[in-house]
């Protein structure tokens, strides 16, 4: 019999469907449903919804896990990130010569707080969008509002460096969700042979860093921070070429050479 003193609540009906009903209320709810067809219909519809959802998505858990979700691989990359943030990384740049950034007093061993996250976000965005055939960019390079718009959204005066000396032509750019949802900008460049490079920019108050190189499979990124924005140049993992391109971008983006506040 239904206990008239404690009518069945909606919460209990949900709990009944979800197997969360305390054992001592089971009979009361079933008796209630037998005499309340509207509630019984609702309960049936909720179970049917649940079944539709499970049928629609259940199979995803049984499909092969793609390689980029391989935990060992991700862990290996993580170790690489950790190592890269250490002072040792600068050794990788000695080949680049003591010109440019070293001259600005950005020293080996400076904490690279900005680096791993910006680089990781940049590489993710790079991998996602360079593969795009139809919509690699959001706003084409010809649009005069491209740079002002991205600067405004990112919150810092940005520029799209001229990489023509590397045979790279600016295609355009797009706005992206960066770290913790902060707006980030991406400029994409393409060579005559279809090679694509991206420059990723995200506001970051982390201290200045030197350039760091990180390789993630077939692509790599060189990243740095200037105290206001974190940058990353990503492209095919040809170390020498990528470093040269990043160095050129770095020099063109260096605020000290474009502003008077040295």
């Amino acid at each position, binding site marked *: 019999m239904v206990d008239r003193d404690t009518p069945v609540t*909606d*919460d209990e009906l*949900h*709990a009944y469907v*979800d197997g*969360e009903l305390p054992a001592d209320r089971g009979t009361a709810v079933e008796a209630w449903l037998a005499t309340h067809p509207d509630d019984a219909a*609702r309960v049936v*519809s*909720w179970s049917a*919804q*649940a079944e*539709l*959802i*499970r*049928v*629609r*998505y*259940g*199979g*995803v*858990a*049984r*499909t092969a*896990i*793609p390689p*980029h*979700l391989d*935990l060992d691989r*991700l*862990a290996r*990359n*993580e170790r690489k990130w950790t190592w890269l943030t250490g002072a040792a990384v600068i050794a990788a740049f000695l080949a680049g010569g003591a010109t440019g950034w070293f001259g600005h007093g950005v020293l080996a061993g400076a904490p690279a707080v900005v680096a791993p996250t910006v680089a*990781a976000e940049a590489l*993710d965005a790079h991998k*996602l969008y360079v593969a795009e055939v139809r*919509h690699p960019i*959001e706003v084409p390079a010809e649009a005069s509002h491209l740079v002002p718009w991205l600067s405004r*959204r990112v919150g810092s005066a940005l520029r799209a460096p001229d990489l023509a000396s590397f045979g790279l032509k600016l295609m355009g750019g*797009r*706005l*992206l*969700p*960066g770290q*913790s*949802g*902060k*707006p980030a900008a991406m400029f994409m460049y393409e060579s005559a042979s279809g090679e694509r490079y991206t420059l990723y920019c995200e506001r970051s108050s982390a201290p200045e860093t030197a350039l760091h190189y990180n390789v993630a499979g077939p692509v790599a990124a060189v990243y740095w921070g200037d105290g206001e924005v974190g940058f990353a140049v990503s492209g095919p993992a040809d170390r020498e070429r990528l470093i040269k391109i990043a160095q050129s971008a770095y020099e063109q983006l260096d605020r000290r050479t474009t502003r008077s506040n040295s």
Partner: protein
Amino acid sequence: MGGFRQDVEAAIPALRRYARALTRDGDVADDLVQDTLVRALRSEHLFHGGDIRSWLYTILTNLNRNRLRSLSRRPALMPMDDNDAADAAGPEAGGRDIERALATLVEDQRVALLLVVLEGLSYREVAEVQAVPIGTVMSRLARARAQVKAFLDGERPPLRRVK
């Protein structure tokens, strides 16, 4: 330790399923899972026991919320396309309908419904993932179910169609 890594690994299929239902886009979903795994590995030292699965669902849910927040502030990239060629699964009409129904839900309600129905979490676990009292989970669940029912019953909000 081995235990941590193994537990995270064992959760990947379920995380992919949850992310897929949450985003309704296979690529976005796997990116979200990857991001979740990276953050989990990075925070291994912060994890002091407890249910790893719930913890992973929490990370993924928060990352997706961040993603949506950014999306809402940026111009729409692509028109709504009913014939999503990327969806190789070729779902039957019922699958399409439930997918559209889920799309009409407020994110917090969708999370509550999917964690309970698809992932089999208890109300208490969902409350922990969403960092709200159980009563709030219950009302989100109730609203989600009412909305999905209304949608499936034909009270469909007008879809913006670009033709």
